[in-house]
């Protein structure tokens, strides 16, 4: 009896699914996957976008930059998102051609956990030394010198880095490599790097893992995206930039860092050490990756609409969500480049 009712329910389900197919036929479905860094913003975009364009449905899976690019190469998704773009080699493997478009930008912050330190200034050589395991205590004279007026506690520094391979790693280590030849030689940069093995250096998976570990460990410091630190109310270090000024994350420092940069042909541009006087030092663009030619013209059209939305309405949401709005000049360039997608 039970079984037969179960069977009936099953049959009903199938029938319903069958019925709904013709209704869905007009909907254009787009799938994308990739970077987790801009995922909260993209998901908001796609939800809002879907509300206005009822016949376009976008599904985005945040599985990480590398995984997204691989999906894109295998042709399982219509577009990918990556914090580190695509390499020449990877681009060559896609027959239809690749168009990368920077869609938003963000800051990477050094969040810390020190009970009585409300504001922390970190000179560039100090944060390099911390992440190379050379400065081991918060009362190090080099830290104290930059923070007159604050008593730095006698506490060991626990450095929290990312355990998994990630675009955040890439951007952060690229910045450190750009400002320190020693870091470049000993650790280097990439989606995953070989951090020094010290008793006080731990690794946690994903942005959330690093955030949780910092929150739970007195004396910890680690790098995460601005949004995560902001959400969990972790204090963020004020960093010295190339011009020698101390700039806090989350303010005008981000847009200032992005202004005046020249994009190359492939739209892949790294701002590994911005020069502007009031620029926050660790910023990055993040890209959506498209084919230049889509076999289904409806898909190309829907993607164009989505890009236009992201560059228009989407940029206004970006600032609220903790990302950096693209400068107007950049938006124009991206719009021109987007015409390559057909």
């Amino acid at each position, binding site marked *: 009896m039970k079984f037969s009712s179960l069977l009936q329910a099953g049959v009903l389900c199938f029938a319903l699914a069958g019925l709904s197919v013709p209704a869905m036929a007009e909907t254009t479905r787009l799938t994308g996957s990739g970077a987790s860094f801009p995922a909260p913003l993209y998901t908001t975009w796609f939800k809002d976008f879907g509300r206005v364009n009822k016949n376009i449905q976008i599904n985005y899976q945040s599985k990480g930059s590398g995984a997204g690019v691989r999906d894109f190469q295998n042709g399982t998704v219509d577009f990918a998102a990556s914090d580190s773009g695509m390499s020449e080699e990877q681009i060559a493997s896609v027959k239809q051609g690749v168009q990368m478009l920077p869609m938003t930008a963000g800051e990477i912050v050094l969040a810390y956990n020190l009970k009585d330190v409300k504001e922390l200034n970190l000179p560039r050589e100090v944060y390099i030394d911390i992440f190379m395991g050379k400065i081991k205590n918060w009362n190090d004279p080099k830290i104290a010198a930059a923070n007159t007026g604050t008593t730095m506690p006698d506490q060991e520094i626990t450095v929290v880095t990312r355990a998994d391979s990630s675009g955040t790693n890439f951007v952060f280590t690229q910045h450190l490599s750009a400002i320190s030849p020693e870091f470049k030689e000993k650790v280097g940069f*990439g989606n995953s790097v070989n951090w020094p093995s010290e008793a006080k250096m731990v690794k946690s998976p994903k942005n959330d893992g690093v955030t949780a570990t910092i929150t739970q460990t007195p004396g910890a410091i680690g790098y995460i995206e601005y949004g995560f630190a902001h959400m969990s109310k972790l204090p963020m270090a004020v960093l010295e930039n190339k011009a020698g000024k101390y700039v806090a994350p989350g303010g005008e420092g981000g847009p200032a860092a992005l202004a005046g940069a020249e994009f190359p042909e492939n739209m892949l541009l790294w701002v590994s050490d911005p020069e502007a006087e009031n620029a926050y030092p660790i910023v990055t663009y993040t890209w959506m990756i498209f084919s230049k030619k889509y076999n289904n013209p409806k898909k190309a059209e829907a993607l164009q609409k989505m890009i236009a939305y992201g560059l228009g309405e989407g940029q206004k949401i970006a600032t609220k969500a903790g990302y950096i709005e693209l400068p107007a000049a950049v938006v124009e360039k991206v719009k021109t480049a987007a015409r390559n997608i057909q």
Partner: protein
Amino acid sequence: MAEYNSLQRSQSISKPPTAGDMLANRAFRVLTLVFTWSIVLLLAYILYKIGGRAIPAVKEYGLGMLVGTTWDVNARTFGILPEIWGTLYSSLLALILGGFFGVSIAIFLTQNFLPRILETILRSIIELLAAIPSVVYGLWGIFVLIPIIRPVADFFNTHFSWIPFFSTSLSGPGMFPAALVLSIMILPTVAAISQDAFRAIPHKITEAAYGMGTTRWEAILRVMLPTAAGGIFGALVLGLGRALGETMALAMLVGNSNQISLSVFAPANTLAALLALNFPEAGDTEISVLMFAACVLLLITLLVNMLGALIINKTGIKR
């Protein structure tokens, strides 16, 4: 009419099997055979697939990978000795803790210390531990366990730092919180199977022990425990198997740092955590290396199980 029906039914009891029965019987036998063999084939297929993808790494790095200590994707240097060490060390610590508590619980719940109803309730609660997802254990470890054990760890570190096990201070994630959570995770397995072992002891043996004038504790420690030893050992081997392969909770708690340290407060890494964290973004070379690491983990688990079976055979105790 009713009489006729009952007559029919009574006759049907002693009927020879019909062709349908025979067919069903044969079909069932064939089906069970197919399923049994498909398990063996599935295992072989998994081995073939993982092994096949690991071959490029085996060719390039060979056994050197097993003794290397650096994992640097950019320099293409891969060594998994710290992970092998971490896997064995964390599992062993978990086994000591989980084994002790698991067997104690089994004794407590089977030797009439409690009213029946309480025994049943407690047993269900312990078995419920097995249903908690690994990620939840990991989160619980980070947010609840680590803050609790931090003062204890600091105490041991300041007063007993001359003992190598306590030589570093706890930074948060590390071997000790990982092993502790792992021991809770294997507790239901160890406790459940040890309970079965204690229940399987023939009542005569218990009565004989009491008849000879033993106290309750003498009976439990000198008679019951040795009699149930085979089953308990089986429980420990199964628990160890689970500990070796546990992934997500460890990835969140162990600190994922490539170092070999006796200190239980230092961060470490395990094979399963390495696999879980590096697969999603791995390139071709790295995937091959990770498959190699997966083979090593498989081999370790296999060896541990075989060793367990061997010890059971040698000591002559039966499961």
